[in-house]
């Protein structure tokens, strides 16, 4: 019960209880290399690893199915909470097929939601995912299906895509759905306005974040050098702002938008952009010590206050050879100090729990 309450608080933080545009306290956010605690400590943001969901100093609650990033990587969260934070839909694996499972933190009930399905977007009760034409995976690139939406954990599916493809659902943007279409090279980002209406939002488009009101999307372009980030209007695809980042090598997907800031994973660490009042400015870069981390700051979440960033990071190789180890780091972006979780195998986790769609 205490866990559920804590999760609720976390999700309230996730949803951005402050209005978009509110600035964090007038503290100075400087770029720099963060100092990460040497010993594992409590991470307040919920995350999953080792078959459990953790938050704070708790011992974690077990998931009944294995967490799996198969076929989706880090394009989409593996665990998506409902607004109350007490129910999670997560990406799992069974036999030869990806499945979605639903976990009720309150009761501990953990059940199959959809067989032969992957990726999750959940907003205002509506759940979108990709349902495969054939549930078993034989050739991953030919694992095709339709984007479908259902009104809740129960209810009939409605097909939103006119033809099957290799889709990965990214997030809701208001009542529109943002979806990756995978191909031979970089994926394209599509906007699905309603069932059957699909348009290209960004070629080789990486969705960094959706604004809390769902009207804007913060995008990067895969493969661009130097990277460029843009804010676009989802309804029209119109570009509102653009910023080139010559000091970076890449900016990638799955950041966050909160408290008038966007966080993004980049080659240099976590970048924090000021997007208040139509601005698009690079405000801060949180760098991670290269002697400790192979790469760091993936899926960075900014809390509602705009003061704390939580992300996962791959540790520099250690004499633990078979798989890399990864941790969750939680950083105060003003003091540049971070807590770290215990180490876990690098794939498929640890992965932070978040909902890029917002409720």
């Amino acid at each position, binding site marked *: 019960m205490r866990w559920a309450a804590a999760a609720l608080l976390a999700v309230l933080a996730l949803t951005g209880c402050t209005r978009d545009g509110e600035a964090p306290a007038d503290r100075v956010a400087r770029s720099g290399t963060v100092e990460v605690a040497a010993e594992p400590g409590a991470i307040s943001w919920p995350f999953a690893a080792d078959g459990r969901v953790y938050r704070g100093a708790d011992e974690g609650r077990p998931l009944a199915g294995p967490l799996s990033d198969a076929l989706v990587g880090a394009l989409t969260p593996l665990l998506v909470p409902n607004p109350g934070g007490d129910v999670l839909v997560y990406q799992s694996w069974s036999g030869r097929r990806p499945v979605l499972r639903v976990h009720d933190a309150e009761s501990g009930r953990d059940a199959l939601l959809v067989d032969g399905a992957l990726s999750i977007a959940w907003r205002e009760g509506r759940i979108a995912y990709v349902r495969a034409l054939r549930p078993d995976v034989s050739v991953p690139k030919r694992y095709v299906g339709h984007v479908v939406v259902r009104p809740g954990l129960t209810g009939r599916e409605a097909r939103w895509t006119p033809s099957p493809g290799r889709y990965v659902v990214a997030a809701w943007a208001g009542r529109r759905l943002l979806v990756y279409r995978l191909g*031979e090279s970089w994926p394209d980002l599509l906007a699905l306005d309603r069932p059957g209406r699909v348009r290209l939002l960004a070629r080789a488009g990486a969705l960094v974040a959706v604004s809390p009101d769902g009207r804007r999307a913060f995008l990067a372009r895969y493969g661009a050098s130097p990277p460029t980030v843009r804010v676009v209007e989802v309804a029209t695809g119109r570009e509102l702002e653009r910023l080139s980042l010559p000091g970076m090598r890449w900016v990638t997907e799955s950041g966050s938008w909160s408290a008038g800031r966007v966080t993004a994973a980049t080659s240099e660490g976590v970048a924090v952009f000021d997007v208040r009042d139509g601005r698009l400015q690079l405000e801060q870069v949180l760098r991670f010590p290269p002697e400790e981390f192979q790469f760091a700051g993936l899926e960075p979440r900014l809390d509602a206050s705009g003061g704390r960033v939580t992300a996962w990071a791959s540790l520099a190789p250690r004499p633990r050879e078979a798989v890399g180890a990864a941790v969750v780091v939680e950083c105060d972006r003003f003091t540049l100090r971070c807590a770290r979780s215990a*180490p876990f195998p690098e794939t498929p986790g640890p992965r932070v729990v978040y909902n890029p769609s917002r409720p």
Partner: protein
Amino acid sequence: MHLSHRVLGAAFALLALAFPLSASAGHGSADDASPNMVHLANLPPPAEFRTCDRGSAACFNSDLAFWAGGGLRGGFTEILAQGNYEGFRLVDISNPASPSTISVVECRTNQGDVSFYQARNRLLLIQSIEEPVTTPDCTTAVETPIVPGTNPVTGTPALFRQKGFEGLRIFDVSDPGSPTHIASVRTRCGSHTHTTIRDDRNQRAVVYVSSYPSGLRVTRTEDLGTLPEQPNCLPDHNRISIVEIPDAAPQDAHVLKEQPLDTDTVIWNATGNGGSQVRGCHDITVFGAGERKVAAGACLSEGQLWDVSDPANPTTDVPGWHTHIRNPFVTASPAPPFTGLFHTASFTWDGEIVLFTDEWQGGGAHGCDGPQDTRGNIWFYDNVEPGATAPLRGRYILPRAQPPSEACTQHNGNVIPTNDGYIGVSSAYQAGTTVFDFSDVLSFPAITDPNPSSVPTVATEVAYFDAKADPSGATGVDNAWSSYWHNNYVYVSSGLASAARPGNRGLDVYMLLGANGRLVPAVTDPSAPNVGQYRARILRYQNPQTQD
């Protein structure tokens, strides 16, 4: 005056080498050790490996190989090779109590497991490179950068290591003081480990290359067409590479074939970046001399047995000629919390039992909780004819509970070549080195369907050494990567770095004490008159992955 454990140990060793045992084994430092395991020597890492200037921050020491088969220039009689992420070094172990570095080769690897092979009058050293480096050449090779790209199998964007050279390097070390790089062999997904097999009939070495496409190791789509001479690392892999080294011309070493594993091999729970699946082997050990050979493949989610009597044609995928060994405590699928890893295999020298170590969660998770813990165990199976079902006899786990900050794992080890029971040696990272007696393993009933309540512990720890004396001092604490019995001593590679020793502990040498010539029961009074150095058969050479 207080003499340290190590000083006493070394002095004792010298006495023991020169005279029948009569002295007391010193003990009483902060190291945690059994009285019958005496630390003889520590050889620090060379200066070249204290500065990681060719890749990531890791300069870890990795595996060991041993040579006492003659033919060395410079008057050396017995040497070992110690792999390192930045290359390797050769060490003179003719006096185990005083090992000395002969030469250091800086040549960026990534892990860098080693083996010896004698090709006519040349002694070769073979080394694994498991993630791409910029070039096969030693002078300039550095790790390639981590770059964004798309997974070639799933199409999903992720981070990958940029394509470069990976596979094997071969050195002529006939003159241990002056190793020469003579060949490089590019293999698919590099070489995490390798297994060198003599094929006398065809006057060649056959080398099995174990590799797998997890994490960064996948070749991204954007690199598939670049560097065409380097095979792409494509998930889910599910194969080994077989390399031939001709005795007459080792510089012409090449990939003989890529050997598929059985299609029923269990998929591993870890993925390649971008969400692709992984199958392959982590390590392979070959047992048997002459016409009859069997291999035990530690293939991530399962163990396998193959007939390798024709080493170029292992029966990995021949129906009825290979065995799958699955274990619910290790095999990852289908559900957590079973996230172990079949890491390394070894055989008893009579060929009755095959051992598999479990590097639980890839060595990336918290310590074992004590005797009841089924993670990080060593598992004992009947070494059946490949194709037959291999029953489980039981398991061994460290009896000493570990703190959460340590990894729960059994890593590299071997079985002592003796007819006097079954005794194994294993490394356990920060828990140091453990020596265990499993002589009674065959008296336990065969288990064909293991479940949590029915797998007995069938071995007892009879000696151990866990160096803890100076966690921040000049030597560092244990982090045993490889612990092997070789010609009457236990050699241990690696250790955690300390401020004064950024390249880790380096190499440690230990001696075991026995009573009346037997290791069991453990010696409790090293000064007792019947106590002496425990000894076993002497081997001309030892690549721990090849028991011939």
